[in-house]
Every structure is written in structure tokens, then in C-alpha cells.
């Protein structure tokens, strides 16, 4: 991409013949250690202080929405894993719920519980990766390895459940592909029991470390109005103080039967809506996930996990807009069907696409080191932005 629409602003030489300075144009990415995937920011900086960071996306655009029109309803399920491979389960759930809503299919209770268990485990995984890589971007390498070590344990659990560690393809239209294997419940409960104190240890290690809070407090403050105006969702929205979660405000699946709180940014270290708030909301959300998991694993009802769905699935014509609470917030699936075996149109509106659109506004006169912190706190993931 050329630098179209982006010219370097040369400051005029000072009146008294002083030194004429010039902005520095830096290209950060697409190969850069901390842009979380293939993202590029054209940074116009005056020394260390940035005038503006303009995001340039599209490097990981596979046009998954076009593929949806080519492979059938069942065949598209593995592709939904690739929309956001860090949190694949909510994407599966979004696609499955869209097809079920179009064809008015009712998923058995145990199937819904399996879905919630898998999604909540996957949310912990995604938050662990986001929190760990944020600490690494600020300079602390140890929290990253501790976060990934815990993530590996969950990988093993999910591998036993559905056979894959990253691109799960676990859910099907009408339920889930595999039931919970024997003795898996006790193992999962034991893991949740073991994992909870490690969150506090993580907090002691890095979250309240003075250097860490100093780097994150009052950096890139997003007010509630801006967050809603830029359609920020999930932890980015809750970090700005808006108490909204699709699982509770637009309830779906079995979430109404589960009780859990919605952590919200309170501006402990600075103003509400700064990088620290978005970070600490993710940490507290992991605790809520543990609470949900404990309830689900204990109340798992007996019965089948999938209903009868035709192999050559043809939903009646119509469209639907399904919203799922992914790890990166409310993910919108707008699916249009024309009655044939191939989806007519599938638009996926993701949290990261909204989050990266606010980077340009937020990054004005921050320092370059802060841009890295902002990218990490918004939890941008390249595949979700470009689809």
C-alpha cells in the first residue's frame, strides 16, 4: 500500500532561522514483534512522541465471507475456527446458532451445556494469551510463559474433548459433535480448582507492579460515549465503564440459568477507560469464567448432545442477525439464506475490527512505547480484523 492520503507535514523553519524539524514517518509492521499478527501502522512521529498512527489492514484477508458462499452449511464450520483462531469456540457457536435460528432447530439442554463449557474454557485461553502477550509487550517476559503454561493445560483438556488444540470444529448445527468423555468432568473441575489461585499469583507478579501500572494508567483513555460510538465491544467496552455483556443482556444458550457478574473498569490506577482498566477487566473475567465453569460442570444434565439435522442441510430462505459474546466481545453474524444448500451471504462483524478503528483517534501524541501498550490492551487479533 502506498502512503496514499498520508503526506509528511514538514514544519516551517522557525522565524529566527532556527533549525527546521521534520516529522519522522515510521512503518511499524506488518513484520513487527508486537503487532499481534500481520498488522501495519504508519506512524507519524516527532521523535518519540507520535502525531498519529494510521492502521493499515488487509494483510490477512482470506475473504472467509466469500468461502461461506462456496462450501455448504456444514462445510463452513471449520472455517469459522479460522475467523478468530485465538477464541474459536464462540465463532463456532455463532455460526451454529445462525443456522439453527434460520431453520428453527432446538438444541438439547446437554448440548447447550457442552457449548458453554467449551466456550468458557476457550475464553480463559484467549484472555490468558491476551494478558500474557500484553505483559510481554510492556517488557516482562515471565508472565507470558506462565500464562501460556496454564493455556497448555486447557489445550490438553479441550484436545480430549474434541481432538484439536486450536481449530476445534467442535460444534455442529443442532448441537456438538462429541459428548463429554468419561472422567473428563472431574479432570476439568480439578483444573479449575487449581487455576483460580494462579490468577492471584499472576496479579501479584505483574498486574499491580508499579512499573506496569505506571505504563498503563491514563494511557489511551476511551470514554464510554466514544466506546459506543466506535462500536467497541467486550472487555474494551466494559473497560470504559459500560456494564454490557451479550451473555446477560441479550441472553442466549443456557446463560440465563447461570449466575456470574460482569466486571467493569473502575479507573483504579487512573481514569476510567485507560489501558489498565481494559487489562484488569480481562483478568477479572477469567475469574468469572471459572465460576461459570464450576456451575456448568456440576449441573451437566443427561441426554443427547445433538438433534437430528439433515446431512444435506437446506434452511428456509430468510436472514438472521445472531450476536455471541466472544472473548473479544459481541460478535455479530448476519447470515442470509436463499433456501439452497449454500449460504447466500454471511457477514461477520468482529470486536477487533471495531477496536482497531479507534487506534487512530486514541494514538494522538502518545509515545511509541504506548502505541504498543494500546494495541495490546485492545486485544487486536489480525485474522479477526481482516477475516
Amino acid at each position, binding site marked *: 500500500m502506498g502512503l496514499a492520503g498520508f503526506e509528511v507535514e514538514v514544519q516551517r523553519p522557525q522565524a529566527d532561522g532556527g533549525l527546521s524539524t521534520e516529522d519522522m514517518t515510521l512503518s511499524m509492521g506488518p513484520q513487527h514483534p508486537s503487532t499481534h499478527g500481520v498488522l501495519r501502522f504508519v506512524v507519524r512521529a516527532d521523535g518519540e512522541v507520535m502525531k498519529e498512527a494510521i492502521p493499515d489492514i488487509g494483510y490477512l484477508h482470506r475473504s472467509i465471507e466469500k468461502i461461506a458462499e462456496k462450501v455448504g452449511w*456444514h462445510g*463452513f*464450520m471449520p472455517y469459522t475456527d479460522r475467523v478468530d483462531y485465538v477464541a474459536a469456540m464462540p465463532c463456532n457457536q455463532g455460526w451454529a446458532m445462525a443456522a439453527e435460528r434460520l431453520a428453527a432447530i432446538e438444541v438439547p439442554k446437554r448440548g447447550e451445556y457442552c457449548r458453554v463449557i467449551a466456550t468458557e474454557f476457550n475464553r480463559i485461553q484467549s484472555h490468558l494469551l491476551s494478558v500474557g502477550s500484553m505483559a510481554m509487550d510492556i517488557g516482562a517476559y515471565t508472565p507470558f510463559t506462565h500464562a501460556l503454561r496454564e493455556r*497448555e493445560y486447557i489445550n490438553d483438556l479441550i*484436545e480430549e474433548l474434541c481432538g484439536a488444540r486450536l481449530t476445534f470444529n467442535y460444534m455442529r448445527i443442532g*448441537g456438538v459433535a462429541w459428548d463429554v468423555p468419561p472422567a473428563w468432568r472431574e479432570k476439568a473441575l480439578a483444573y479449575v480448582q487449581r487455576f483460580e489461585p494462579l490468577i492471584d499469583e499472576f496479579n501479584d507478579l505483574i498486574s499491580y507492579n508499579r*512499573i506496569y501500572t505506571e505504563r498503563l494508567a491514563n494511557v489511551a483513555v476511551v470514554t464510554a460515549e466514544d466506546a459506543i460510538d466506535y462500536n467497541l465491544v467486550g472487555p474494551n467496552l466494559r473497560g470504559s465503564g459500560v456494564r454490557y455483556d451479550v451473555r446477560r443482556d441479550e441472553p442466549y444458550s443456557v446463560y440465563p440459568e447461570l449466575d456470574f457478574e460482569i466486571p467493569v473498569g473502575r479507573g483504579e490506577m487512573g481514569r476510567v477507560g485507560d489501558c489498565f482498566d481494559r487489562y484488569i477487566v480481562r483478568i477479572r473475567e477469567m475469574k468469572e469464567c471459572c465460576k461459570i465453569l464450576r456451575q456448568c460442570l456440576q449441573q451437566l444434565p443427561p441426554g443427547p*448432545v445433538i438433534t437430528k439435522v439433515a*446431512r444435506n442441510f437446506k434452511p428456509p430462505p430468510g436472514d438472521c442477525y445472531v450476536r455471541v459474546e466472544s472473548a473479544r466481545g459481541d460478535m455479530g453474524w448476519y447470515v442470509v439464506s436463499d433456501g439452497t444448500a449454500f449460504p447466500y451471504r454471511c457477514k461477520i462483524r468482529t470486536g477487533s475490527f471495531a477496536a482497531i478503528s479507534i487506534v487512530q483517534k486514541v494514538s494522538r501524541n502518545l509515545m511509541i512505547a504506548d502505541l504498543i501498550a494500546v494495541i495490546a490492551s485492545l486485544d487486536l487479533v489480525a485474522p479477526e480484523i481482516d477475516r
Partner: protein
Amino acid sequence: MGFGTYLRNIKDAALTIADGMAVTFSHLVRRPYTVQYPDRLPDGVRVQDTLPFRYRGILEVDLEICTACLACERACPIDCIVIDAEKDKAAGGLVMTRFDIDLAKCMYCGLCSEPCPTGAIHHTPEFEGADYSLESMVRRFVKAPVVAYKPKKGGETDPEIAPILERGMRYVEEFASPDAPAGK
């Protein structure tokens, strides 16, 4: 900023840094978690054996129990399975001349092993699929034309296919089915 906040900043910094160091020091006495794959494993343990039954590794096809129903070929979203089977009265039933899977394109999603009635195509825990040339990534399962398996009406299966069929059905039972009520 007042003198109070000045001192509080120093105390705050010192305490939180010391606490962070206490956590890392406590890690010095904890065992590492690394699994030293591939060469430093305890004697005789292969990583593949430790993987769960449902692990979706490289595909494998038992031709003896494959009924050539092409369900897997239709189910694969990437069309990386190609089967040629012709009706041949003389041999009595379908004769398969070709059953190829292009492992370079396969994304191990498991959609092919679901509709298989006898569990002929299933995932193995094998995952070391690296190879030197792209062509050798195509697994050709049919060496010589073979008659597709046809389950007999009477229900009894001849002895040497029975174990393979029993193993295949174990893969089929693993998948959730709408009618069979799953255990608690």
C-alpha cells in the same frame, strides 16, 4: 505533586517490585513443565500413544471395511479426497481403483470421518507429517483395485474383517448421535 505522594510512590514501587520478585523466586524452586519432545522422553514412551482417542491426526483408511459410499468425499469442504469406484457385476459390487487423500491441503477438521457408516476413514494420533516433496503428501490408499465391502444382510461378518469392523465401529460410536441418550 506533594511530598506525601512522592514518598508513597517510592514505597509503592519498592513493595510491588519486591512482591513480584518473591513470586519469581518462588518459581526457582518449582519443577519446570517442559515436555522434552522429541528425544528426551522416558524410555519407550512415544508421544503419539499419550494422545487422547479423539485426537485428529493424519487420516487413515481401512479399505477392508470401506463401502465406497463417497460420503467422505462429499463432506470434505476442501475436496481433498478423490475416490474412483465403478460398478462391476463380475467382481460382485463396486470396485475401487483409487482412493487418494491430499494431506497437504487437508485441515484435519474431521468432517469426513463423521458420515462414514463403518468408521473406515478415521484420524490416527500420528501427527509427524513432514515430508520432502509435495507429491508424497498425497496418500494413495488403493494399491490394487479392491472390491468395496458390502455388509451382508444376515448380519454375520467373516472372521478376518470382524476385528477391523469392530475397531471402525468404535470410531463411529465416539461421535454424538441424536437418539442414543449420552451417559451422565
